[in-house]
């Protein structure tokens, strides 16, 4: 039986989790259209395994891993996106706080793909170091290293500079 015909199957999962996946993808790519492409690609990779993986209750983790590995592979193919110098005037104001969204995009754009993925998984998805390591397919020690380097970089950005001023 095709997965899509299973009541509450793959389609129901995407309807329930698609928006959350898109948000994580936006933080990874910094671009709405690319985020949608990334989610669709990750779901396409995960779909053939839905029956087997969902039976174990681990489809969410499977999709998340597909998301970050696909993102990393896109980066390897030299898709860099662009770093805007200022918010374009004609861009639809999708974010509640466009300036903050701009700062976040700029700050995250300076991270390596792994560092960026660690930040998104740890601070947006609220994963533990162990869960993050599983999603990235690396060791916990590697996650700690990427995490430390990412924060060191973000401290020099407008994003965390303000935060540190607030706390001092």
């Amino acid at each position, binding site marked *: 039986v095709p997965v899509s015909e299973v009541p509450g199957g793959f389609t129901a999962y995407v309807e329930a989790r698609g928006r959350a996946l898109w948000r994580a993808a936006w*933080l990874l790519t910094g671009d709405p259209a690319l985020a949608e492409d990334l*989610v669709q690609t990750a779901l396409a990779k995960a779909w053939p395994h839905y029956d087997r993986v969902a039976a174990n209750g681990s489809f969410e983790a499977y999709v998340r891993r597909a998301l970050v590995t696909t993102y990393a592979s896109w980066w390897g193919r030299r898709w860099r996106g662009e770093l805007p110098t200022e918010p374009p005037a004609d861009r639809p104001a999708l974010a509640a706080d466009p300036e903050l969204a701009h700062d976040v995009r700029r700050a995250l754009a300076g991270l390596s793909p792994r560092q960026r993925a660690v930040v998104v998984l740890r*601070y947006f998805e609220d994963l533990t170091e162990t869960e993050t390591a599983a999603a990235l397919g690396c060791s916990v020690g590697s996650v700690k290293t990427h995490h430390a380097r990412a924060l060191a970089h973000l401290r020099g950005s407008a994003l965390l500079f303000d935060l540190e001023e607030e706390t001092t």
Partner: protein
Amino acid sequence: VNDPLSDRLRDAVPEPPDLTGLAGRAEATARRRRRHRRTAVVAAAAIAVVAAVATPFLVADRGGVSAGPDPATASPRTPAPDPTPPGPADCADRPSVHGDFATGTATWVRFCPLGGDAALVSDQVLTDGIAGLVDGWRSRLSTGYAHSCPAVLGAVGFRIRVGFADGTVSVIRGDTGACAGAVGQHQGLEGVASVFDELTRGLAAAAAEGVPAGEPTTPLRCPARAGDVPVTSNSSSPPADAGPLLDLPATGGVVCRYSAEAAPVSHRSLDAETAESVRVALAGSFDAPGGGYVRYGGTRPQPAFVVLLRDASGNSRAFRISGRQHRVALFRGSPAAPGPLGKAGEQLLYAVTGSYG
């Protein structure tokens, strides 16, 4: 992790767009990939069988694998061109004697990309018509590039080395983000963008000399869908492994306009001048600061363009410009992959969309 950083990330994320049909699209993509994979496996198996059957016969015909070519029947070798171009042996060499860019008599120019395979213009040397070209650069390059120039992700660095009659060399530094213009000790130059454009044109024009005109080819036709790029083709020999950029000047082209990447809704021909402008822009031209976002009309879904360029030898290249939510991506190469438009930016879009008047 409960951290102010978490709060900021959550506050920054925009509202997702309408994702209706996402599951269906993902499923369709997965099915398509599965079909392609099966086709590839079958094709590989067929090739392996053919090779296994044919190889013994081929080896027998040649009298053994190790026999090598028969000197008596081997075609005469044409003399190899001088492998050593003027100037430094390669771009990695640093010139030992710095020339005076303002007054020296230029005899050669070498373009040295720093971006590896990211560079669309390869390491090349130009020797003809150099004096006039460099004289123009002297008047165009000027110091006093005062306004801030933030780095552009993905910008490809390059060096343009200018060799003079006395053996000295000057180096013009730049990148396709138009930030790092410098020559000699002078930091901050404006005009490096036009130098890059002129050299890109000059290198192609030099490469075209002596190249016989290609056979009349079939007209460039718009692909049925914008997503069908690449449609790189040549009537006689599809350059499947060729780079994404024509090496010779473009002599014409076609711009196909699509609505939501469906069937082409219209197309326009490009004259040689416009086609060459598009080719040069595609090589990594420069964008005004602010670059990744380019105004691209206000309708949704926004149009997509497929541009087909052809050179004098009959080779052609195609690339696609697609935009969604005021964001434009450039698809090129084989297989076509999305890439940043940034450097080409407005210049490229103007050349393409401007062809629609």
